[in-house]
């Protein structure tokens, strides 16, 4: 324990502080995920519109999100917009804005893919059976689309949780920052704390993300046939 620096974990309220840090990161990602799901579904529906102007705007938005690293977006919002527009924005709010901006685009693209991915013959067969448009959508198309959508959005949620680790770079005191503080505070008494704490952070993130990945995989297998 001493050699690996795990003893520091149980000093004082250190482990509790780590969990608080993790909760902060998770909180940011969960708020962003919730917002992205709602906005993403709307955006996905907008993307299926055939208007060329709407299409081009959506395309540009999607490309920006695809190409710019999330860290750059964080910097742009946290340092750039505050400087240019002169408003005040705390780091947590900036993170939520950035992750929602990113998540909405990705979610929207998944929704679009799921809706347009339903084979044409499903629509036609539904109509051939005499269903009205509302019936066809409610009982055939949407359930099919959701089956494709849910595993993919689970993977997106994992990615969003993972990416929240970046918020430390704009000064949010989340789990990695807390562990750095603990390491600094115990530099003299246990110089190996860095190993134990980073290992713990590693495991904590894994524990936070793995259930979503597992669920995604299980659902994908269940619905694939």
């Amino acid at each position, binding site marked *: 324990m001493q050699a690996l620096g795990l003893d520091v974990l149980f000093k004082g309220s250190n482990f509790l502080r780590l969990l608080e840090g993790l909760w902060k990161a998770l909180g940011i990602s969960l708020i962003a995920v919730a917002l992205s799901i709602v906005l993403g579904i709307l955006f996905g529906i907008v993307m299926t519109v055939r208007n060329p102007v709407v299409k081009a705007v959506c395309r540009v938005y999607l*490309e920006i999100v695809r190409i710019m690293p*999330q*860290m750059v977006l964080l910097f742009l919002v946290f340092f750039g917009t505050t400087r240019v527009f002169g408003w005040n924005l705390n780091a947590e709010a900036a993170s939520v804005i950035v992750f929602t901006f990113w998540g909405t685009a990705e979610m929207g693209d998944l929704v679009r893919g799921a809706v347009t991915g339903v084979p044409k013959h499903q629509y036609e067969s539904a109509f051939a059976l005499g269903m009205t448009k509302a019936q066809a959508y409610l009982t055939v198309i949407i359930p099919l689309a959701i089956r494709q959508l849910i595993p993919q959005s689970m993977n997106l949620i994992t990615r969003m949780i993972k990416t929240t680790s970046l918020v430390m770079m704009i000064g949010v005191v989340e789990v990695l920052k807390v562990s750095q503080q603990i390491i600094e505070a115990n530099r003299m008494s246990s110089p190996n704390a860095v190993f134990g704490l980073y290992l713990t952070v590693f495991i904590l993130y894994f524990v936070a993300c793995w259930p979503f990945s597992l669920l995604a995989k299980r659902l994908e297998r269940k619905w694939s046939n």
Partner: protein
Amino acid sequence: MDWNVITEYLPLYWKAMLLTLRIGWIGVALAVLIGLMTAVIIHFRVPVLRVVFKIYIEIFRNTPLLIQLSFLYFALPKIGIKISAEVCGWLGLGLLGGSYMSEAFRSGIEVIDSVQRESALSLGMTNFQVMIHIILPQAFSYSIPAVVANIIFLLKETSVFSAVSLIDLMFRAKDLIGLYYNTAECLTLLVVFYLIILLPVSILGTVLERRLRYASFGT
């Protein structure tokens, strides 16, 4: 916007971009290699290795690169494994990317019809030959969209390298903002340089994907 500042900073950013590009592409190459190896091993159900590689995929898919790098760079020296920052970058990117690439290749390999495999075997090819000449070329072309998406994702992830004190674009921008407060200029340059890195890959990806759609038309 002060253009003098921008021309003054250009060489600094250029140098940083070269570092980002070097580590990024070495990482991508490693990721493709690791991913291919992992996919083949899992496909052939190699006894012990299969479990090891599956665990590897789960671990690296479910943890952030920032944490992986911090662990490689700050924690491993404590148990006697010292790795330079740049090699940490390669390794981190390669291992993270490998876990994503393997999924992409695996779905490609699985999609190739077993008829192809059986025909090749009945022609007298060995298992190895079948893999190299028949399955992998087709699997490659099938998994290209996913691979390109992964490459873009990996090149974007290079932005966390500043955490292990590599002087990449992000580090440069943060450093200059902290020193001289030219926020607007620094951030504009940052965006422009990331566009230079990523836009070609993105465009290439779109072109490849479109061509591939023609290739698979009718099947």
